[in-house]
């Protein structure tokens, strides 16, 4: 989805255009669900979180400020936070820190026709992401770890966490250019 259509969608949502809700769901549900599933790792729970996410997105939409970032980022953050809250609030917390990050079920659940071809290519390329760098952004993005928690978890200096996170995102930026 490009910027122009995101802007249009935001405008329509602001205008309480009911059709825009369906458009919103169809545009973003797969992306949000994929991230949520990656975090909670259970489909049933992921479906509940997706539903909560959309409700929150819709109810909090008035507080969305495009000056602070894109709609997609904002929606991703809402979904991630709800999903991360979910895994922290329960017994889920137990042992989750030592759970292996790589090759979670979601990678194999991606249905080809729901993903843009350029993202399939991107997915292949992100596999070239340095594992030392990848684990850092994965711990932050999918496990909700702060930089300090990551440093503690991996037993590396805080400066290294920063450097690796920066390199990982630089690598990703180059891929989407």
């Amino acid at each position: 989805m490009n910027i122009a259509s995101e802007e249009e969608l935001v405008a329509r949502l602001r205008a309480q255009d009911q059709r825009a809700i369906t458009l919103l769901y169809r545009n973003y549900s797969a992306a949000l669900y994929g991230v949520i599933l990656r975090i909670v790792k259970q489909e049933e729970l992921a479906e509940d979180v997706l539903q909560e996410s959309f409700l929150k997105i819709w109810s909090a939409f008035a507080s969305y400020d495009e000056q602070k970032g894109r709609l997609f980022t904002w929606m991703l953050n809402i979904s991630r936070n709800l999903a991360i809250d979910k895994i922290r609030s329960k017994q889920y917390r137990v042992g989750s820190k030592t759970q292996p990050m790589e090759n979670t079920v979601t990678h194999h659940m991606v249905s080809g026709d729901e993903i843009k071809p350029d993202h399939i290519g991107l997915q292949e390329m992100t596999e070239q992401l340095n594992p030392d760098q990848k684990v850092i952004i994965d711990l932050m993005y999918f496990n909700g770890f702060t930089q300090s928690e990551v440093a503690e978890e991996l037993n590396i200096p805080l400066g290294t966490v920063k450097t690796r996170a920066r390199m990982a995102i630089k690598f990703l930026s180059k891929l989407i250019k």
Partner: protein
Amino acid sequence: MNIQEYIESGVLELYAAGGLTPHQSAEVEQVAAQHPEVRAALDTCLRAMEAYALTHASAPRPELEDRILKQLQAASAVRQEETAPAGKVFPLDTFASAVPQANTSNRWWQIAAVVVLLISVASNVYLYTSLQETREELFSSRQNARQYALQVNRLEQQNVQSESLLGVLRNPQTLAVQLKGVAQHPQAQAIVFWNQGTKEVYFDPSGLPAAPAGKQYQLWALVNGKPVDAGVVTSTDSSLLRLKTVAEAQAFAVTLEQEGGSPVPTLEEMYVMGESSAR
């Protein structure tokens, strides 16, 4: 604060990846709001993380769409009642089929391709049909033009003929020879217009009965008692026909002969005859 150092510190990447505490995040947002370069660098990082998130995309079960949209609709209806009581609530389902799935750009392209193809096919059919119609119109126009040309031609010819016939008749040198029906054909009659100067012979066959199929009338000039072929009467409808030039004749006679004429007259089939006053 050194902006460039700030951008390169890695804090923006930590923000994008979600590795900052809420307090640290608020600080980054504040700096970004003040410095466009920071805002731009932060957006680049956020874009990268959006793309990374998308690599994990996974479509939820289709049943979920209905469930979630109904919830959103209900929530939205409540909100609309609060904010705008007169507001109209449209059922989502009505629009569901009309709203395209923009998260599958593939499908967009497919739909676009099918639409373009259909438009192309339709225009081709339309253009082909139009072409056929145009061709038919052109053909019939050409036919009509040809018909008109032929008619004009015929009229011109008739006109020329009439004028020349009038000239023949008005010519003081023209001698009219009345041919009267013989005993077997008393009703038949014909006129020979014979120009004494040019020796041209014009024949008026309108008084003759129509020639039966396979037969034609033939005019004979009687020169010193001998019949000389003066031409075959191709049509009895014409008012006047130009036949062969006759240099000398004491009388004219018409017989019915085989189509194309005969070298000698069939005397039993003589229809009309008349003496010329010319010498």
